[in-house]
C-alpha cells in the first residue's frame, strides 16, 4: 500500500491526437437534381469520371485484341517488310487500318447488341456444321499461334540474357494464374498495362533516324512490285493484321465487359482507337527496320522477330535491340494470354458452356480447362529443343488464311441481320468497307495459297 501513488503524483495523461483526423472528412460535391419539384443534392450517384480518366476507362477489349495482333509473328512480318522493302509497304498499313477498324468495330457492335460472342451467333444462325468447321480451325490455328508466342517469349528473354527454360515456364504460370484467379476487370487492366511495351517500337524507330520524307512517300504513294517476295510479304502483312482470333476476342470480351446496346458508344471508340494504335505500332516496326537494316545494308532477309532485334544491334547499338526484345517479350506475353482465351471463348460459346474470366474455376471448369491445356501444350512444345517451328507456322498461316474470309462473311451477315442488331445494323458505308475488306482479304488469301501450291509443283507466279 505504501507504494500506492496519490492522484496528484500521477503523470498527467496527454490527450491522444496521433491518428485522429485533423479536419472533418470532406464530402463529395454530389449532384443537384429535381425530383417531383424538389431540388435535392445527391452524393451517392456513381458517375463516370471526367477528363483523361474517362478516356482511359473506355479503353479495353479493342486495344487489347488489336495489340495482341502485334505478336511474335506480326513483329517478324512487319520487320521483314521494313528490312526487305524499306518504306514501300507502309501504304498497305494505312489502307489496312481503315479495314481493320471497320471489322473490329463491327465485332464490338455485334457483342454489345446481342450480348453473345461470335461463335454463339454462328451456331444459332448458321447451324452446327459451320460451327464445328470454324471451331476446329480456331482450335488448331490458335493452338499453333499460342505455341509461337511461347517461342517468342523464349527468344526475347534470351536476347535479354535469360534462358528460355526459365522464362517460358514462368511466363506460362503467370498468364495462367492471372486469368484463372483474376476477375475480368483486373485482367483487363493488366493486359492494358502490357500494351505499354509497344511504345518500344516507335522509340526504336526514332533511334534509327529515318528519312521522314521517304516515310511519308511510302505511306501515301502506293507502290506495287510484281515480285514474289513483295507480293507474299504484302499478303503476309494483310493476314497478320486482320486475324480471326482478334475478332473473336474483341466480341467475346465486349460481352464479358458487360457492354450493352445502350452504352455502345465507348466500345466503338475503343475498337477504333485500338486499331489505329496497333497499326501505328506496326508501322513503327517497319520504319525501325527500314531506317536501319534496309537503309544501311539494302534488302535484308529476316526470319523471325528475334532475328530483327539481333540484326539491329550493329546498326543502332544494343539499346535498340533491347527495346525490340522488350517489345517482343511483352507482345508475346499479351498474345500468349489472348489467344488461349479467344479459343476458350469460341469453344464455350459454340457448345453453350459457361464461360468468362469472371467465373471461378468451379463454375467455369471447362472454360478454364481449355485455356490451361493450350497454355501447357504451347509452353511445353516451345521448350522442346530444335522443334521445327517454321513449317508449323506455315501450316497455321494457311489455316488462318482459310478461316479469315469465312469469319468475315459471318460477321458481315450477322451485323446486317436486323432481327439481331435492330438499329445497330450496318450502315451502307460500313457494308461497302466491310465487303471491300472481304474481297481484299480473299484475293490475298487465294494469291498466297495459290502461289504456295504452284511453288510446290515448281511454278512461279511472279518474278523474283
Amino acid at each position, binding site marked *: 500500500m505504501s507504494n500506492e501513488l496519490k492522484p496528484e503524483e500521477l503523470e498527467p495523461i496527454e490527450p491522444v491526437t496521433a491518428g485522429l483526423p485533423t479536419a472533418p472528412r470532406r464530402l463529395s460535391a*454530389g*449532384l443537384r*437534381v429535381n425530383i417531383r419539384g424538389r431540388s435535392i443534392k445527391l452524393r451517392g450517384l456513381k458517375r463516370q469520371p471526367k477528363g483523361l480518366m474517362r478516356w482511359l476507362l473506355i479503353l479495353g477489349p479493342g486495344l487489347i485484341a488489336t495489340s495482341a495482333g502485334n505478336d511474335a509473328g506480326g513483329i517478324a512480318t512487319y520487320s521483314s517488310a521494313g528490312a526487305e522493302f524499306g518504306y514501300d509497304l507502309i501504304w498497305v498499313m494505312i489502307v489496312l487500318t481503315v479495314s481493320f477498324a471497320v471489322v473490329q468495330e463491327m465485332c464490338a457492335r455485334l457483342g454489345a447488341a446481342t450480348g453473345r460472342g461470335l461463335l454463339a451467333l454462328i451456331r444459332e444462325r448458321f447451324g452446327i456444321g459451320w460451327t464445328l468447321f470454324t471451331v476446329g480451325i480456331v482450335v488448331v490455328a490458335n493452338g499453333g499461334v499460342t505455341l509461337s508466342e511461347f517461342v517468342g517469349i523464349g527468344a526475347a528473354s534470351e536476347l535479354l540474357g535469360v534462358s528460355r527454360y526459365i522464362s517460358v515456364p514462368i511466363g506460362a504460370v503467370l498468364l495462367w494464374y492471372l486469368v484463372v484467379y483474376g476477375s475480368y476487370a483486373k485482367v483487363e487492366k493488366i493486359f492494358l498495362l502490357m500494351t505499354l511495351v509497344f511504345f518500344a517500337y516507335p522509340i526504336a524507330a526514332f533511334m534509327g533516324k529515318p528519312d521522314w520524307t521517304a516515310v511519308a512517300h511510302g505511306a501515301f504513294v502506293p507502290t506495287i512490285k510484281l515480285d514474289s517476295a513483295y507480293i507474299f510479304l504484302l499478303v503476309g502483312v494483310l493476314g497478320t493484321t486482320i486475324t480471326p482470333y482478334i475478332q473473336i476476342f474483341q466480341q467475346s470480351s465486349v460481352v464479358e465487359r458487360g457492354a450493352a446496346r445502350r452504352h455502345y458508344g465507348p466500345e466503338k471508340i475503343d475498337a477504333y482507337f485500338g486499331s489505329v494504335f496497333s497499326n501505328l505500332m506496326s508501322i513503327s516496326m517497319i520504319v525501325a527496320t527500314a531506317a536501319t537494316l534496309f537503309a544501311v545494308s539494302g534488302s535484308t532477309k529476316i526470319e523471325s522477330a528475334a532475328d530483327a532485334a539481333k540484326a539491329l544491334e550493329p546498326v543502332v547499338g544494343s539499346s535498340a535491340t533491347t527495346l525490340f526484345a522488350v517489345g517482343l517479350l511483352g507482345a508475346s506475353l499479351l498474345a500468349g494470354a489472348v489467344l488461349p482465351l479467344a479459343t476458350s471463348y469460341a469453344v464455350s460459346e459454340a457448345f453453350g458452356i459457361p464461360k468468362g474470366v469472371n467465373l471461378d474455376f468451379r463454375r467455369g471448369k471447362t472454360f478454364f480447362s481449355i485455356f490451361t491445356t493450350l497454355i501447357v501444350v504451347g509452353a511445353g512444345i516451345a521448350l522442346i529443343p530444335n522443334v521445327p517451328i517454321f513449317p508449323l507456322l506455315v501450316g497455321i498461316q494457311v489455316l488462318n488464311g482459310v478461316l479469315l474470309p469465312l469469319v468475315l462473311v459471318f460477321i458481315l451477315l450477322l451485323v446486317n441481320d436486323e432481327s439481331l442488331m435492330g438499329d445497330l445494323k450496318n450502315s451502307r458505308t460500313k457494308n461497302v468497307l466491310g465487303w471491300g475488306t472481304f474481297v481484299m482479304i480473299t484475293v490475298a488469301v487465294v494469291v498466297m495459297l495459290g502461289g504456295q501450291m504452284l511453288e510446290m509443283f515448281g511454278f512461279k507466279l511472279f518474278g523474283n
Partner: protein
Amino acid sequence: MIMLSKLLSFNVFDAENRCVRLSDLSVALLDSDYPPITNIFFEMNKKLMKVAWKNVQSVNLKEKKFIIADLDSAEEVSLAGKNDYVLLKHEILDALLLDLENRRPIRANDLLIEKVDANWLLRAADNSIGAILRRISFGFYNHVGGNLLDWKYVEFLRGNPAAVSSGAGYHLRITRLPPGDIAQLINYLPYLHAAELLTLLPNEKAVKTLEVLPLERRLQIFEELDEAEAVGLLALMAPDAAADLVGLLQTEMMSKYLGLLPKKQSDRLIELLRYADDTVGGIMTNDIAFLPENLTVSAARTRMRESFGTADFIYLIYVISDERERTLRGVISIRSLLSEDDDRKIGEIMDPYISTLSAFDEVNAAAYRVVDSQLAAMPVVGTKRELIGAVTIDAAIMQIAPGTSAETLRIFS
C-alpha cells in the same frame, strides 16, 4: 420416338405425288409440358409455306414422308411478328436452353419428338455429343443415348424481353426455383435473355433475383426492362439495393424513375442517395424495424405485423424514444419479442448497450466494425443520435470482400 435431326430429312408429298423438302416444324410452347407439333413448313416457289398438323394425313417413317392432301392448300407465312408458335429448327435447335434440373444453360444439339395418339409431342432436348455426331454423320451414326433432358424441365428463351408481354409461350417452371439459383442461371445468360427471364418471373421473385445479382449485371439487365416493369421492380426492391441501382442510371432516367415510384419508396431512395459511396450512409439500408420504448410487448407484436411485415431487415428491432424524435435507446431481438410477457414494456426488455455508426463514418472501418461485432446489423444514427438506418452484415462483407461471391450477399436482408 424420333429425333428432329432425322425428321428434317423428310419430304412432304401430296396426293398428286408432288414433293417438296420439309424445312421446319413448329410447336405451341404454351400448350402443355410437352408441346404438340402444330404446323409443318416447307419452301415452294421460293416462298415459305405452312400446313397445319391436323392436315397431315400420315407420316411414313420408313420412306421419310409427310403426306398431305394438296401442296397448293399450304398457306404462305412470314416469320416476322409471329407469336403463336415456335419453330423447332429455326428457333430451338442450336439455341440456348435452360436445363432447370441441373441449373445450367445448354445448347439444343437435337430434339426428341414422340408420337402420343394423334399428336407428335416435343418430349426432350438432347445436349450430348452423340447428338452432334448424329447431325454431321449423314445417317451413319444414329444412336440415341440416355442423356436426354425432359422438356418439362427445360425453359426456352427467345433473347427478346418484349416477347413476354407480346404473348409468347413459356413453361414458367423457372419461377419455382429459388432466387439465388435463378440469379446463377442469369449470370450465364446473354443480357437480353437474362432480361427476358427476369420479365417472366413474378415481381416478388424478380426483385429477389435482381437484388443478388452483381451491381453491373443488375444495371445491364434493368435497362432492358420496359418502364412499367422497371418501376414496379424498383418499388418492391430493398431500398439499399434499389438506391445502388438508381445511382448508376443516367440522371434523366433516375429523376424520372424516382418521380414515378410510390412516395414512400422514393423518399427512402433519395435519403440513401444523399450519402456518398465511401460513407456508411452509402451501404446502409433504411427499411428497418423500430419500436417506441413505451410500447408493451403485446402491442409491439401487433405493430410489427402491421408496419414491418415487408421490412428489408427485421432480425433486430431497434428501440427508439418516440416516433417524432426517433432517438435510439436500445435493441431487442425477435426472440425476446416472442418470448417475453405481453404486459412488459419494450424499454424494460431491450438491451441498452448498443454500438452505433454515424452515417458519415468512413465505410471500410465501419464495415470491419460490423463484422467484428458478430451482429446481424449495426444501427446508424444521425448527429442527435436519431435512428436513420442500419448496416447489415451482408453489406459489410460485400464492402470488405466484394469478390467473395459472384452474387451479392443478401442473407439477412
